[in-house]
């Protein structure tokens, strides 16, 4: 049903994201990393599943929590780790930090932390595609918190009105910073907000990468056939807290999530689930999966060597990049 190549790519992409994210915990705690970092651990299936159906010409915009989106879209791990360390070799030359990642040559047009602020930008990329008739698709990644912003509804309307090839991907991880979804919405069925606009919308298990992938395949096909846009709500969970490595567990200083809830979701770890599937279906054996993991760990280690060898941007270049030539 799924090609071996796709399955292994999904696995490798999720491992790349998870290991990159967890590699940052120590540098954050030690103070080597100072910028705000919103870890994506736990949500890997969403980025990987969507990313697997896109090509380099397709575009994507992300949020404050976009390491995963950037990486699966083809952004360089080295340049991401360097950026998060404020180095001049970073993907944003030390001007952006963790929340501003860019890889335009791979179609990752940018991530920015104003909640819902990049949704309309993705609609614009979809509009560019429809004017140029180049067949590309634009993806907007955003969280459940963005559903409170008016611009989302303006964007849905505009995209539906002009049948733009845009995939709206809402990653519902149940928490809008510190507030549970029950405190910000009268119901939790986010995907239904797209229905009144006549937009095809559905909800998938965001911790099941194969379910996300199938939904993404349908969505991208619909968009490429000029029957966009599509809205996908992915139910998922961030294993870390809103920002930094803190788990936001009740009883600790951030005091937000019940420990049992976090534990429940740990049992639904998307990587473990795919691993089980691969092994049970004979797609790969343990040795092969270990090798994939070791190779990716090696790539991440090299990213840290690259980062350590890189310089901070010189103070004399403070004014560089205010205006484009």
């Amino acid at each position: 049903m799924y090609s071996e190549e796709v399955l292994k790519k999904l696995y490798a992409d999720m491992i790349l994201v998870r290991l990159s994210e967890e590699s940052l915990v120590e540098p954050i705690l030690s103070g080597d990393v100072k910028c705000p970092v919103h870890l994506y651990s736990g949500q890997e299936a969403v980025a990987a599943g969507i990313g697997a159906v896109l090509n380099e010409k397709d575009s994507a915009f992300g949020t404050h929590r976009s390491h995963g989106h950037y990486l699966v879209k083809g952004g360089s791990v080295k340049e991401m780790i360097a950026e998060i360390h404020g180095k001049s070799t970073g993907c944003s030359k030390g001007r952006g930090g963790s929340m501003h990642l860019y890889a335009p040559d791979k179609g990752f047009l940018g991530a920015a932390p104003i909640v819902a602020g990049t949704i309309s930008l993705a609609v614009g990329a979809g509009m560019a595609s429809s004017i140029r008739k180049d067949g590309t698709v634009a993806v907007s990644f955003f969280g459940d918190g963005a559903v409170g912003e008016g611009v989302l509804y303006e964007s849905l309307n505009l995209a539906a009105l002009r049948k733009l090839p845009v995939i709206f991907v809402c990653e519902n991880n149940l928490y809008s910073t510190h507030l549970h979804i029950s405190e910000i919405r009268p119901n939790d069925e986010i995907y239904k907000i797209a229905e009144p606009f006549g937009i095809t919308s559905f909800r998938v298990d965001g911790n099941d990468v194969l379910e996300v992938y199938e939904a993404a395949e349908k969505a991208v096909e619909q968009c490429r056939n000029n029957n966009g846009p599509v809205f996908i709500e992915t139910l998922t969970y961030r294993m870390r807290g809103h920002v930094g490595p803190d788990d936001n567990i009740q009883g600790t200083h951030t005091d937000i999530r019940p420990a049992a809830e976090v534990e429940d979701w740990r049992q639904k770890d998307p990587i473990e689930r795919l691993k089980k599937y691969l092994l049970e279906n004979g797609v790969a054996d343990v040795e092969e999966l270990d090798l994939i993991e070791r190779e990716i760990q090696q790539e991440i280690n090299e990213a840290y060597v690259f980062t350590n060898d890189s310089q901070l941007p010189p103070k004399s270049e403070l004014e560089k990049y205010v205006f484009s030539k």
Partner: protein
Amino acid sequence: MSSANRKLQYSLAINEAFHQMMESDESVFLIGQGVKSPWYVGKTADGLIKRFGAERVIDTPVSENGVTGAAVGAAIAGMRPVVMHPRMDFMLYAFDPIINQAANWHYMSGGTSSVPVVIWGVVNRGGEQAAQHSQAFHALFSHIPGLKVVMPATPYDAKGLMVAAIQDNNPVVFIDDRWLYGVEDEVPEELYSVPIGEGIIRKPGNDVTLVAVSYMAHIAHKAANSLEKEGIDVEMIDLRTVKPLDTEIIFNSVKKTGRLVIADGSWKTGGFAAEIIALVNENIFDHLKQPAVRVTLPDIPAPASADLEKSYYPDEGSIISAVKSLIKN
């Protein structure tokens, strides 16, 4: 073909800029509320839909935030959109895409990505339209790093600066004034641009430097001509661009005259006139014979009723009094 002395209305000069730019560059498109309707946009969009189709001339729902964001996103994706706001007041809904996104984008991406978008807002002063239909926000936008702000006063500059704004690789806020739309003057037929950041001396003089932009440049020019008859020799400068400011043209003039009046169609506090005075004080303070004078709107929302409106908006008389106050001293 090219006739330097052909006359064209301000609104048709903008229209010609669109026709020529959309013809020469397929990535240029126009989006915004009312681009289909002369009721909204005057003659600025005449013939565009017919020639370029509804794909590239996009009339929109009333969704300033989403629509401006879409224009910004399209620019990031390689297009050169012009997004139209027929009343600048409504453009405040779009602060996020203009300021947080477009203005910062090139910097926060370390130069990796650019946003060649024109954000076009029209000021609609007067006509008893009151506070939410008449505001001029150029000072607000000029405060933001990464934005350029242009305010052409003449048909020639309207065409040339619209072309320059579209060709620029940065977000440019293009602000015009509905009161200028009927102004007629010489506009060359060929495609040309007016450099962003360059002012122009409309009337040379030696006694007082008078600086203005947009509609106020016309009033200031008239005032300068009237003062001439009274033997006061005013140098009138139309800056044309609010940001980046042509400081050279201002400084050279003030060095010569030692006196400075700024006439601005927006508020006093934290305004465009204040910025010019600050720059003059910082750089060439010793050349000033007297403190500079500002002719601006009072720090009051625009009223509706005609008599209140009359005292609200500075006119030729306000500028003449300001200039004379410097000469008397």
